[in-house]
């Protein structure tokens, strides 16, 4: 294990931001800490970097307890959201900073700076100052600077947060390729699920100071461990229902559900692309009225209203949508292909932005 975190607690005044967090990051993996703002992900990253100290708990790098070591003794690379480049130094001076303060010989610094600038494809910009670079270029300089001492761990705090959409897209792919080349254990913080899915090997979902789920992108999306994860990873429709035995009921629809004792209220979650639209009533379907059609390029989002459930949304591919030829006002029937059932008590949906409800 490259990073082992055990029972970490941290509070600022009366505000507890990390509650008993434990996490393992294997060697060479790229892990995303994903969650809404205020969930504690940045604090966790800063504790790993040595910029904050935990109130309780252990942090080990490669088996070594490092809680007592200061930031400068940890040899981790850290990339900030707003780059934090030294504006009075050229690109080359910024990249070589960590080696200069370690008093390495000039030739060695020179060689390493050249190597890193080639890696981030900024050889031509070595004599420029940060204010003469674009945001994407600055972030690449920041990354090269963080890698200068070949750190054991690379930490990235919302590295693409300050960039515009297209640059962000490019940099994500580039970061992934870079990681595949270098295999440095990396932890990166983001609130953007698309970014986490595209870049990381594993995703750590955090909410209100706790880890909700850890898994591969496919795992957390397909088998969400909690209503929070379900709601955070994309749009979802929520139906109020109840569980009895190993069956869940929504109005007169019936689904398989994890066993529960007696009758308890439950929320039934269905992703927009897992709802089927039919013109005619089929067994196990629910009546609804089309209210709006939103073209999304390769897909169409259909917004509907259903008695007792309010607004719903369904995502159809273009061909299916053309075959149905829907128009606002049409009466249709919806049948879920796949549902996920959670007890209503586990769901604090109001703290989140989930569409479809």
């Amino acid at each position: 294990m490259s990073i082992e975190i055990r029972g970490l607690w941290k509070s600022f005044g009366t505000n507890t931001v990390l509650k008993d967090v434990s996490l393992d990051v294997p060697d060479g993996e790229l892990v995303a800490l994903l969650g809404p703002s205020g969930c504690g992900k940045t604090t966790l990253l800063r504790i790993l970097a040595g910029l904050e100290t935990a109130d309780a708990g252990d942090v080990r790098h490669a088996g070594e307890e490092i809680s007592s070591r200061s930031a400068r003794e940890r040899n981790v690379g850290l990339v900030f959201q707003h780059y934090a480049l030294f504006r009075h130094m050229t690109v080359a001076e910024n990249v070589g900073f960590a080696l200069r303060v370690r008093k390495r010989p000039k030739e060695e610094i020179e060689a390493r700076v050249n190597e890193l600038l080639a890696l981030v494809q900024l050889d031509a910009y070595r004599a420029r100052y940060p204010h003469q670079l674009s945001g994407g270029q600055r972030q690449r300089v920041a990354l090269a600077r963080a890698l200068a001492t070949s750190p054991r761990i690379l930490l990235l705090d919302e590295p693409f947060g300050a960039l515009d959409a297209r640059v962000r897209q490019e940099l994500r792919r580039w970061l992934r390729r870079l990681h595949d080349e270098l295999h440095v254990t990396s932890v990166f913080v983001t609130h953007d699920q698309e970014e986490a899915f595209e870049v990381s090997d594993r995703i750590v979902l955090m909410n209100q100071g706790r880890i909700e789920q850890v898994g591969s992108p496919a795992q957390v999306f397909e088998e969400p461990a909690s209503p929070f994860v379900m709601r955070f990873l994309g749009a979802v429709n929520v139906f109020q229902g109840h569980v009895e035995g190993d069956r869940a009921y929504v109005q007169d629809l019936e689904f398989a559900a994890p066993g529960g004792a007696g009758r308890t209220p439950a929320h039934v979650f269905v992703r927009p692309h897992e709802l089927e639209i039919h013109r005619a009533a089929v067994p196990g379907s629910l009546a609804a009225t089309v209210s709006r059609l939103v073209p999304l390029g390769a897909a169409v989002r259909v917004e509907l209203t259903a008695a007792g459930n309010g607004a719903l949304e369904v995502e159809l591919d273009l061909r299916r949508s053309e075959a149905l030829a829907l128009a606002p006002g049409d009466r249709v029937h919806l049948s879920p292909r796949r549902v996920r059932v959670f007890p209503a008590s586990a769901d604090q949906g109001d703290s989140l932005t989930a569409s479809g409800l």
Partner: protein
Amino acid sequence: MTTAAVPVPRAPRAGWSPGVLPGFGLSTGFTVLYLSVVVLVPLSTLALRSSALSWEEAWRIVASPRALASYRLSFGASLAAAGVNVVFGVLVAWVLARYRFPGRSLVDAVVDLPFALPTAVSGIALTAVYAPNGWIGRHLAPLGVKAAFSPLGVGIALTFIGLPFVIRTVQPVLEDLDAELEEAAAVLGAGRWQTFLHVLVPILLPAALTGFALAFARALGEYGSVVFISGNMPLRTEISPLLVMTRLEQYDYAGAAAIAVVLLGASFLILLGVNRLQAWARVRTGRA
């Protein structure tokens, strides 16, 4: 597909463009007029006054041993005082910007006192404290340090009146400083001292230079507080502004103006130099 004629965008007017805000002519015209009335015209009368003297006479006055000694003291003590103020001003600004302690707002207010005090009051107060029988002077005298009535006294007075400048120019820069820069330096392995030297000092340099220039200029023109503490001994503790005053009291307006012109020219050159240095530092820190 046919290519339609694309309208060629009109080339921007060659040469210098005044920017989007109107009123360049008006505001510049006013600035020139204002500076002329307030600064240039009074200063040129000074040159005019001194032109009543012949070259030989003027040279005899401005290059007299007494005058030369006063330049040395005035420029030397002003530069030294401004230098001391840069070092300790940055320190005070650091404490005020970085730490929250009881009485901080009191300290913050005390910093501006040298601005508000009539200079004669400062001079009397400093003399009382640093004179051989004063609170501090009493303890310095046995050590062989003569604080009042010596060039050192001049330096003390000039340091006192120049104190606020560096603090007030550096403090806002320190307060705006992004904490991430220091964190980045720490994570990259820099110690506190290395971070200060390689990261903070270059950022503070332009503001500190501004403070230095202001403190220096103020010290050079200072008269009221110095005459009390210096003792005004010709060739030893007599500053140039005092020499000007002495000439004026003898109704020698032309002689006074001649010395003043020398002071003016020299301080203009020094301030110009500091400004150039500042511009260079600013370009380097990317805030050109």
